[in-house]
């Protein structure tokens, strides 16, 4: 996909849409550790060649048991015994903490020590994973917190990492993202489906439900936003556009911001889509809050485009052009240290 710099639209008035699902960030979920888990961890650690390796195996085992407990609560089937970390030989030579979900794939459950600021992904687990769950131990070794998730990405031979990867905990996606991965097909917001009138995610609403002024938010045709999606005059193209909106709430803010996503299909020979992402203040204000930032990240969590509205801005926008089928990206809306993340695919 190709990125365009931010541009600005006229203000429009919005109404609130309150959603608990949206406001409560699903991070730091405590999981108690059971004696069964401690017994397995101690048994596996005792088999190792050195105390240091034993400690790694001990913490890996507890991390896997914790994620399994969470998935078991949610009635998601797992099979510990299929994991490499449950094979005596393999866990002795690999730094591995995998959990198999039969028929779905393999998760990696990475232990994070108290006070650590990053999650480490060893080379041997850099591939063949649905993703990586950060499992942070409490100061007292009686429970862990499931901090968040990073998706696994199929890597080409040349792209495979040469050294262990370190993921800042601030960059983790909420656990919603983990659940999305475990429900393929339902998971990520598929923007192409919007163009076909399919809206699977009720939290994404018609802009008419949120926006009192229809002047700038008309669906179904290209509106006059003055954006960058111009059609070359020599192309006989049909333009189709759909917009949906979602209110984003921050605990530190007594107002909301609203993310409006406009999907624009310019039917030409290729099958690309353009996506316009706009942030507006709520109806109680005509300016976006300070310290707001919108960041678009690719599948690997690398920043594609990153924008902060100028002081006093009534709205801000980033655009992704020429998105291809299969492209995936996430949008992080941050207010200071607090952030919300939405994920999309084309």
């Amino acid at each position, binding site marked *: 996909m190709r990125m365009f710099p931010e541009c600005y639209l006229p203000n429009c008035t919005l109404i609130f849409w309150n959603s608990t699902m949206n406001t409560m960030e699903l991070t730091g979920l405590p999981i*108690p550790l059971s004696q069964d888990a401690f017994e397995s961890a101690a048994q596996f650690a*005792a088999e190792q060649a050195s105390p240091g390796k034993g400690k790694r195996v001990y913490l890996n085992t507890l991390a896997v048991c914790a994620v399994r407990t969470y998935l078991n609560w*949610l009635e998601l089937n797992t099979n510990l015994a299929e994991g490499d970390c449950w094979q005596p*030989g393999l866990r002795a030579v690999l730094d591995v903490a995998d959990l198999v979900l039969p028929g779905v794939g393999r998760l990696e459950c990475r232990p994070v020590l108290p006070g650590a600021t990053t999650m480490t992904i060893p*080379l041997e687990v850099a591939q063949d994973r649905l993703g990586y769950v950060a499992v942070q131990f409490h100061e007292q070794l009686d429970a862990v917190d499931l901090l968040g998730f990073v998706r696994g990405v199929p890597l080409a031979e040349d792209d495979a990492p040469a050294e262990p990867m370190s993921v800042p905990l601030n960059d983790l996606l909420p656990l919603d993202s983990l659940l999305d991965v475990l429900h393929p097909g339902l*998971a990520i917001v598929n923007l192409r489906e919007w163009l076909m009138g399919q809206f699977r995610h009720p939290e994404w609403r018609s802009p008419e439900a949120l926006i009192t002024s229809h002047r700038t938010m008309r669906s179904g045709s290209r509106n006059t936003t003055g954006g960058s999606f111009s059609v070359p005059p020599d192309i006989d193209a049909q333009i189709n556009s759909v917009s949906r909106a979602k209110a984003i709430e921050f605990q530190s803010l007594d107002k909301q911001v609203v993310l409006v996503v406009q999907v624009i299909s310019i039917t030409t020979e290729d099958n690309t889509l353009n996506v316009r992402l706009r942030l507006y203040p709520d109806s109680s204000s005509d300016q976006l809050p300070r310290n707001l930032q919108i960041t678009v990240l690719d599948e690997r969590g690398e920043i594609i485009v990153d924008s902060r509205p100028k002081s006093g801005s009534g709205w801000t926008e980033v655009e992704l052009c020429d998105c291809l089928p299969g492209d995936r990206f996430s949008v992080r809306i941050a207010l200071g240290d607090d952030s919300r993340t939405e994920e999309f695919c084309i």
Partner: protein
Amino acid sequence: MCDDTQIQALLDEIRSSDTTPLLRRKALSRLLLCIQRSPKLRRSRHPDYGHALSLTLERVCRAIDEFSPRSASISTDLMNWVNGYLDGRIRDLRNPDTKIKELHRPDREERQIKQEFGGVVLLDQSIGEDGNPTSLGDLTPDPRQDMTLLESWIQALQQAQKQRIGRDIHRYMAADPDAILQGCHPGQFSECHCQALIQRLHLSEPPETRRAIAQDFGIPEQTLYSHWRNKCLPLLQIIALRFDTQVIEFLQSAEAQALGNCHPPEQIPCNCLDVAKRLLLSEPPESMGAIARDLKIKESALAKHWHSECLPRLKKHRL
């Protein structure tokens, strides 16, 4: 802590007939977060309180549709409902007639490790003569001084084991008696063999970086990375499996015959049973390359078949 409005919204989401399994699980997860953040949640110092709480939260997810608020405060009613079940599980822990008492009971040292985990890991404290952690400034020439409390405890567990697969594998890799690790190297870089890489990446603490090793051997980084990933790591796994008694016993059992049906089209000799036996039971060990040459198949094709078809079946069947 969640207020009544938030909890009501979550319950509405969970109980909605329109909700998808995904949205229901997201809402349940948030409800679990609310419950565990509530100061009203019953706590206990019992060493297996975590087990009781886990059973309770599992029950919350299974039986949430049975919860019906009776007072004006849905959050209070929810916590009363949760604590009612949790109280029962905590009573089970204390009841000598239940099977819970059969569970492992942590000893004093294990309890201390759990209580002081954060401190000992972060500060790398070691055990003093009185059994208490000492500060970094108080360290003596005790050989355990570089170890955390947790590592010291694990070391004691390891010393109590007669046989340790981890130690056996490491000794084998360090000695390389069959020269299969030293014999695996990229082209003319004969010193950059798998044993040297395993020594520097797996057996040294802390492990060296691949970049530093590549510079040391004067080998292009990409060549080293590919060699490690495509040759040494698979070899490491095969060695590990050769030490796994359950795998070996399975391969020698009648049950393993089913692996014989799994082979690439038109290539019956490449079936998983025969390949597994040659890789894991042969003495001296046969290499993937030698087997591939014998079967007149490309080594990369055989390796792919082994990893994508044979290894997953082997792991699943032997369990």
